[in-house]
């Protein structure tokens, strides 16, 4: 997934289970990404409980902001996954993240150098 920018790995890379990757794709909603890659079964870092979409308490404990927590996906590769499947999933994720970001005004603003934290939003 080297072709994507603004990708953050959640948790230590050194002390980690083999086969696990938990990644946040900035400016992309995890739930939208899941919808976009609907032929791949993975989990998002938001636990959909009742009406609210709560970001994961584990990611919050690491100090991950709500935005990045909502944009996280957990991949769990197992005994029966093939290399071809892993390659396919990586391609699908990259193209879906790119397409979702093309539609994201926030990503566009960030690319133009706007610091989103300084923006005064209407209604704020």
């Amino acid at each position, binding site marked *: 997934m080297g072709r994507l920018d603004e990708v953050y790995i*959640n*948790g*230590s*890379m*050194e*002390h*980690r*289970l*083999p*086969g*696990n*990757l*938990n990644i946040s794709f900035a400016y992309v909603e995890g739930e*939208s990404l899941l*919808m*976009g*890659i*609907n*032929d*791949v*079964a*993975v*989990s998002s*870092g938001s636990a959909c409980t009742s009406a609210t979409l709560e970001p*994961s*308490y*584990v*990611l919050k*404990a*690491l*100090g991950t902001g709500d935005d990045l927590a909502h944009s996280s996906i*957990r*991949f*769990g*590769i*197992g*005994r*029966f*996954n*093939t290399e*071809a*499947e*892993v390659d*396919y*999933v990586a*391609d*699908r994720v990259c*193209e*879906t993240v790119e*397409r*979702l970001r093309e*539609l994201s005004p926030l990503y566009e603003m960030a690319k133009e150098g706007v610091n989103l934290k300084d923006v005064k939003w209407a209604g704020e």
Partner: protein
Amino acid sequence: MSTTDLKTATQEQRTPAPDGIKLPIYMDNHATTPMDPRVLEAMLPYFMEKFGNAASRNHPFGWSAEAAVEQAREQIAKLIGATAKEIIFTSGATESDNLAIKGVAEMYREKGNHIITAVTEHKAVLDTCKRLEKNGYRVTYLPVQKDGLVDLEDLKRAIDDKTILVTIMAANNEIGILQPWREIGKICREKGVLFHTDGVQAVGKVPIDVNKDNIDLMSITAHKIYGPKGVGALYVRRKNPRVQISAIIDGGGHERGMRSGTLNVPGIVGLGKACALAKEEMSQEGHGTVGRGLH
């Protein structure tokens, strides 16, 4: 943006699935794993042909069920460096976590009422601790560092003369990080505090040895290691020190009184086989070579 727009937007220019790839692809193996066909094969005779109750002492139906259960106990024990008698069968990891924490809390109540855990634990541990807080126990929830690991100095500082148990998972279910369980075990042993670890995500994937790592209790489940759902185990140390726990399910005195209820023989056979396969294949699967910096 409507769902339809989103679908159109995300499905354009989709990479076609290469030949030989069957969709959908399952890549959520921390939630659960598919059963290994070899596990299923081992279990099948115990549904119909060898259906006996492992507690039936008077006939061969019971004896063959009991023999299968004892073989599974050996297989599980071997994977984690324990002895067969230290394996207590349960319905899965949630029950094992409950049994370990509530069982120790009740048994050692006179010694102390303080338990230490971490904020990133599984809900089976966190909610069990919250229940104990309502019953007069004191719980410290350790924070974690940016990389997800607990700070060992925080742990040392949190232990006091009323601390009876530290419960910190080996591998985290969400972010996959490995806590420094061996170092935690060493600290607990030095301070004379029992150490429980939820080993659900780590057992069978990275080497864990309850003796080298000073683990006193460890929760295990079958369905994360290519075994069936609805069966798990709790490792309970019998020597140096001998750990005692109160039961949370009372009844016929199965599992030496620690967990009553007729044993789920096919499930137990499946858990045993899954552990045996994990032990054989851990190195081949690349497991045990990555991410073990502290061990």
